[in-house]
């Protein structure tokens, strides 16, 4: 590798990092309004203090499956969207954000599949709300996995419509003249009824508690109004909020931006630190490290593939440098989540996917340092890309930093058991990926390369040992946690069984190899099967009907999982087929 090539390679990596950095920069104002400043305001929702921006992104993700949309020939981002929903519902109601895929549901609301695909606005749905609610109420008592497709879809639509409905009635009652009017009419006889509605419908609490009271002290607008009605002094946040409302409705950007500063001052005075914490999270949201990371992994993988046919001396180090930058972005994202949440890296299925990908990438980097053949880079980039894709699909259910349910609320066990077992998953997947690379290579490579094959087998074998260690220790630690919190070490619970299957399978691989019953090829076939076992115990056991709530995941994931398993079986066949399968004609009987 010449000096120039080295420069170019690391230059590409640095460029990727710079692009990643650009993502984190604040976006400009929308129509002159400082919408991202408004998105930085802290709120309390789902039990934790977060920026409004997080709520906007997650709600839009739930309702629309994306974090932004095009309307009237321009892109509307989450912060602008939430402002419209909160302050100008009459505008937001016209935006076609509800995705409906189920033809029966589309038929129910009396619409045809329009050219604009199947996007509907709240206004489109508003005349059918009663019917949607009626159908959903009928379907709700049925357990999620027993619902028909229509029932799942209608319940899902109802949940999204209800979320939207709550959002538009959180800071003011939709259809009323606004928060300012609400403040003026404090004391009028029909006000308490409206306060009651506001309290019940509020999706989040926006008014911070004075002077270091706990998170319980946060109030929603309805609570604050109701307290004033009862004689308490007016919450200092209400007036700037009402002014923001009026300025936004009047399209007065200058006043809006000015009042936002007042609101920030009130918030920082009442709850110091909340604003800083929220703005850190906004930077994290904007940077989208896992999306950027998966893009970089993708480019790295492509670069490496090209390197096999074109300028290998330049492109292979470039791919490695790109993988390295991807890993940096990925690691930073992971670290940011740990810091923001104050928890070990794995707290739910979404974060486990991110961590599995991270583990696979780090292991791949190490392998590449040891063998320098490009296999480590290829496998790590592919595994990192795939697991981040899985994570992106798992993260569509709402807040990915949700609070931990009581029994999981133990940082010690989350840090030991969950992390170890997830490293075990990562290792097993990596071994499987290496085996896939081995299988494909065997058939594609022009001439057999014994040294390369040997290297791949060694890598896979070493990683299987590594995974057996981590999955075993992780499983036993899980048993000890279970003994601590439920009183039994082992209960044959589906999730425990899943972990046990991985341990058993890795043990079988090592023992068959040790006993000499399989050689290189057999070992690789078995390693690919490890992918199936791991996928089933990671996601499959959740589909037995334990601990899963969302229809979207169930259906889509089941198909995806089946497809994945079938593809792995196919790859096992490919791996088992002899290398000269294509050229050697099978002997004919005739």
């Amino acid at each position: 590798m010449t000096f120039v090539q080295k420069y170019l390679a690391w230059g590409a990596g640095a460029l990727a990092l710079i692009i990643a950095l650009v993502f984190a920069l604040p976006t400009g104002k929308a129509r002159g309004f400082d919408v991202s400043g408004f998105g930085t305001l802290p709120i309390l929702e789902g039990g934790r203090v977060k920026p409004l921006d997080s709520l906007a992104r997650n709600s839009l993700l739930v309702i629309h499956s994306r974090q932004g949309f095009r309307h009237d020939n321009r892109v509307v981002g989450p912060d602008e969207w939430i402002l419209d929903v909160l302050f100008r519902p009459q505008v937001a109601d016209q935006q076609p954000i509800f995705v409906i895929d189920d033809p029966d549901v589309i038929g129910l609301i009396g619409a045809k599949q329009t050219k604009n695909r199947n996007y509907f606005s709240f206004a489109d749905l508003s005349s059918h709300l009663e019917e949607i609610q009626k159908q959903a109420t009928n379907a709700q008592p049925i357990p999620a996995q027993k619902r028909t497709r229509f029932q799942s879809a209608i319940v899902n639509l109802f949940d999204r419509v209800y979320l939207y409905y709550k959002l538009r009635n959180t800071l003011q009652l939709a259809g009323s003249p606004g928060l300012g009017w609400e403040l003026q009419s404090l004391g009028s006889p029909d006000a308490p009824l409206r306060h009651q509605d506001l309290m019940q419908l509020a999706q989040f609490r926006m008014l911070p508690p004075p002077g270091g009271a706990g998170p319980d002290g946060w109030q929603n607008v309805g609570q604050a109004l109701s307290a004033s009605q009862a004689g308490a002094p007016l919450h200092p946040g209400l007036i700037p909020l009402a002014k923001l409302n009026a300025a936004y409705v009047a399209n007065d950007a200058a006043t809006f931006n000015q009042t936002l500063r007042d609101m920030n001052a009130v918030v920082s005075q009442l709850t110091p630190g909340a604003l800083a914490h929220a703005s850190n999270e906004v930077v994290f949201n904007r940077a989208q490290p896992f999306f950027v990371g998966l893009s970089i992994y993708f480019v790295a993988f492509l670069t490496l593939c090209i390197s096999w046919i074109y300028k290998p001396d330049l492109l292979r180090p470039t791919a490695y440098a790109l993988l390295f930058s991807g890993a940096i972005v990925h690691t930073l994202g992971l670290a940011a989540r740990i810091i923001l949440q104050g928890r070990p890296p794995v707290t739910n299925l979404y974060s486990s996917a991110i961590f599995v990908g991270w583990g696979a990438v780090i292991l791949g980097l190490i392998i590449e340092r040891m063998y320098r053949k490009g296999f480590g880079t290829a496998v790590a980039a592919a595994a990192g890309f795939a697991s981040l894709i899985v994570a992106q699909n798992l993260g569509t259910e709402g807040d990915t930093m949700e609070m931990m349910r009581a029994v999981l609320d133990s940082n010690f066990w989350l840090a030991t058991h969950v992390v170890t077992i997830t490293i075990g998953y990562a290792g097993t997947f990596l071994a499987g990926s290496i085996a896939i690379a081995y299988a494909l290579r065997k058939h594609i490579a022009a001439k057999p390369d014994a040294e390369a094959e040997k290297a791949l087998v060694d890598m896979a074998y070493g990683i299987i040992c590594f995974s057996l260690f981590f999955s075993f220790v992780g499983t036993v630690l899980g048993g000890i946690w279970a003994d601590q919190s439920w009183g039994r070490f082992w209960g044959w619970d589906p999730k425990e069984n899943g972990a046990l299957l991985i341990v058993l399978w890795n043990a079988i691989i090592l023992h068959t190899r040790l006993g000499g019953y399989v050689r290189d090829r057999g070992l690789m076939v078995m390693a690919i099967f490890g992918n199936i076992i791991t996928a089933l115990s990671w996601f499959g056991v959740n589909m037995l009907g334990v601990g899963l709530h969302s229809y979207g995941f169930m259906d889509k994931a089941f198909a995806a999982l089946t497809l994945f398993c079938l593809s792995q079986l196919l790859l096992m066949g490919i791996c088992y087929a002899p290398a000269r399968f294509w050229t050697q004609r099978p002997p004919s009987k005739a």
Partner: protein
Amino acid sequence: MTKPSASRTKTLAFGAWSVLKSFQLTIVLLALLMCLVVFCTLAQVEMGTQGAVNAYMRSFVVWNQPLLLRLPFPGGALVGLLLTLNLIAKTIDIKLSWQKAGMWLVHVGLVVLFAGEFVAGMMQVDTNMSIEVGQTVNYVQSYKEMELAVIDVTDPVWDEVYSVPDTMLSKGRDIAIPGTPVTLKVKRFFRNAQLSNLMPGAPPSVATMGVGPGVSVVEAPVVSADNEMNQTSAFVEPVAGGRSYGVWLASVAIGAPQSFTHEGHTYALVMRLRRQYLPYAFTLKQFRHDVYPGTDIPKNFSSLVQVVNPSQKESREVLIYMNQPLRYEGKTFYQASFGKNDTLSVLSVVENPGWLLPYVSCVLVSLGLLVHFAIVLRRSLKRRQDKKEG
């Protein structure tokens, strides 16, 4: 004549030994265990966790597994036993050299782990204790098993309880209640039944006394899923001093007290979950169910319990909460559930004499793996050095 037979025994023993310590056996057994784990997991959807574990893991042969042509399949106990023997054989067979010290420790640790699961399977007793705030409870009760309690309630401050387990009722024999003149004649026993009001015109009930005559009882299939309960019921005829007190219907589904009086003693008949009385009592002083603000996501459950043990002259308060159970007199009490608008706390109670074994195993295996890795690392470093020098 004796010599060849002895040598045949010897070869047979040798053959058995070489099978027992073989890798093939390990692999076959591990594969069988994997199949069993898959079966057991899938079966839980229908049978409930306990049912599936008993059918697949705690049995020697699974006669009727639904997934593989209904062929008999070796059960978890058999596979586990063979695997343990295989492990022991292997452990003995591993050369006692320092090179193998790590692997030796690992396999000893695994033997201990298996032993722990065996002990748990054979001896672990799972019960629970539900207490309402302010209530004092001195017994734990079974999750599924029933008993028919004959309670002498004559003394207003002290109940004398005699209980007949459901397994005994199901045999249908006459049961003399020790310590009392009463003998119970079991007319019919239903492990699970459907109770409803007797419709006019329907055939009359077997029962002649208590609430029974107005109730129709229909046998129902036994359920084992975790969230279902059998409505165990029985028609019994108490006989004392040669006199019959009529036929009574006792059922879990009946809440109303039913009793008869014999020679100044009043006996209540109650079908209930099987109880085990304790030499100490718990009083629930406070139950907390905290949620994260603005949500219904539970943050913590905790029970503040006063433990009173007269034999130890002990009376103290204990806080039982998530991940923080109380280990007391061989039993462990865990916060498990709650009810009745947060005024009822349910503690699950586990008694497992082998609870320490997995911990021991964990230490042994981890140590073994570390030792093994150290040895391997040393070897490879040495090899690298040799290469450099050579």
